[in-house]
């Protein structure tokens, strides 16, 4: 045997590298597959249940034995669902627009202006992120009651017209707008509001799109506060209304799932329009979607 011939040990050690790479690849695909299934299954079951008759709802089969669109007909012909849908659209849209305006204005001010107490104001706004909604609903309710806002759009919307999260997100994005742009506009004769609107806002479009989706989805799916502040069925939003399908004895899951399936359509449209922005926005904000 030659001295320079590779030993058996050397050959054995050289082999495992590609094999472990393949294993790693398989493991990654497996994790992604499981994750994908976990994400898709609730949606699949939602659609499946919405196509089932009441007696079949508690069967775990994904494909309905006797598929029906009767639930969709019932829900869409039910006048209540129409109003809940309209309420949700109005509330989510107005809240989103207000957040885009107010959060970006405050974020811009905190980012681009130097004034005494700036850091304290920013910390104070951020600190509200640590207070859970459950703690806030009682003061909100008392306030709504005192001002006569119970069971009104204003009552549902006012706590969310401006958010600490949105302010933080916008402030971080405005950091990426060079001060030279703002100073150049100042020299060119624009006032501060014009600079914010004409120069700064177009430069943070990805953040605005991301914030729009976050706020729209958050308000579209909000349940606790709309449930507390509304009394009349006509003022319900979709999540509150859907929870009331059925009666004391039974929950009409097939109708709830039908309403839920219909209510995902606007969020799907919003997401499809803004998805290229939200991906960039999420990456830049360092947030999880």
């Amino acid at each position, binding site marked *: 045997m030659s001295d320079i011939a590779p030993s058996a040990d050397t050959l054995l050690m050289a082999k495992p590298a590609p094999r472990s790479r393949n294993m790693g690849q398989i493991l990654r695909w497996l994790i992604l597959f499981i994750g994908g299934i976990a994400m898709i299954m609730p949606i699949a079951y939602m659609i499946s249940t919405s196509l089932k008759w009441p007696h079949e709802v508690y069967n775990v089969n994904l494909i309905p034995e006797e598929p029906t669109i009767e639930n969709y007909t019932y829900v869409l012909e039910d006048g209540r669902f129409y109003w809940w849908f309209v309420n949700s659209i109005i509330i989510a849209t107005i809240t989103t627009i207000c957040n885009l305006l107010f959060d970006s204005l405050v974020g811009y001010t905190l980012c681009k202006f130097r004034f005494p107490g700036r850091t304290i104001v920013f910390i104070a706004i951020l600190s509200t992120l640590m207070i859970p909604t459950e703690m806030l609903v009682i003061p909100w309710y008392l306030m709504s009651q005192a001002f006569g806002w119970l069971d009104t759009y204003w009552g549902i919307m006012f706590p969310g017209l401006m958010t600490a999260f949105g302010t933080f997100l916008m402030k971080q994005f405005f950091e990426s707008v060079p001060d030279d742009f703002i100073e150049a506009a100042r020299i*060119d004769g*624009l006032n501060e509001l014009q600079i914010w609107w004409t120069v700064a806002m177009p430069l943070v479009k990805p953040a605005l799109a991301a914030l729009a989706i976050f706020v729209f989805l958050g308000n579209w799916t909000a349940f606790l506060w709309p449930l507390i502040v509304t009394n009349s069925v006509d003022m319900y939003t979709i999540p509150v209304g859907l929870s009331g399908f059925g009666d004391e004895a039974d929950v009409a899951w097939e109708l709830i799932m039908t309403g839920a399936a219909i209510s995902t359509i606007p969020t799907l449209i919003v997401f499809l329009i803004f998805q290229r922005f939200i991906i960039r926005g999420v990456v830049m904000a360092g947030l999880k979607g």
Partner: protein
Amino acid sequence: MANLALRSLTKSYGATEVLHGISLDVADGEFVVLVGPSGCGKSTTLRMIAGLEETTSGIIEIGGREVNNLEPKERDIAMVFQNYAIYPHMSVKKNIAFGLRSSKMPKADKEKRIQEVAGILDMVDLLDRKPSQLSGGQRQRVAIGRAMVRDPAVFLFDEPLSNLDAQLRTQMRLEIKKLHQRVGNTIIFVTHDQVEAMTMADRIVIMKDGHIQQVGTPEEVFHSPANTFVARFIGAPSMNLLDGRLNGTQVTLDAGNTVDVPEVPGSGDQAVLLGVRPDDLHPDSTNPIITGTVTLREPLGAETLIYVETPSGEIIAKADGRTPPQVGATVQLGADPENLHIFDSVNGDALS
């Protein structure tokens, strides 16, 4: 167009004063370059003129009118920034037109003005492009166009060529100078590059640590530097400074050599620094100054820079490009007496 005056201008950040009462008069239509190392206060001065920084004390006048308390837009100035500051979401045309947003000029006149400026800057074909589709030089031209379109009293340039490569910088330098000759507005130009200052300025203001060191034409600051800082800052390679002692019309170097120098009125027997530019220091001079050994050569084509180790330290001289002394060779370097500069060795001020 207008003249500009700074009167005892100071700027402090908290307890730290960064500008110590600078005064300057800029004539109508003059091209003045503020030059100095980083942190000397040149950009701060420019930003104070623009109204982007508040003045701690002192007066700024533009066209004979005090502008200290005026907003930037009310000062009739336009500024070109180092990183262009052209808006990426707007076309070239909209960027140029942006300078006219607050103008009450009729729309047709605005359009005419934009076309005129685009013509001057050779950008007519680029008006519909976005900044991302332009080269660095074209972007800088858009920034200049946005400033030009308003026809301001004073143009302010804050290191506008720093982000360009060497070739483009030379080209833009020429273009800005031609532009000034054509439009004739007053220009204040900030740079840390002394070549830019020398090639473009009518007058150069050399700053250091918040003080003006010297104001003069490029020829004045090069040939008659006010102190050792100016002497070393202007000119590349820097002026050689050799320790010595002045006595009448002779300087005796610490290394022992005696050098003939021009007469310095009012000076006695005192310690001095003898300054001589590498361009004036030659191996074949009739007025020898010092002898040393060549340690390094830098061929520049027509000339070769030689680094010579002498008893007074390393000095740089220029030799003929075709037959430069070899590394290791002993050379005797000298310069004509009228090209020698004498500085006070204590405060660095020029004596000659």
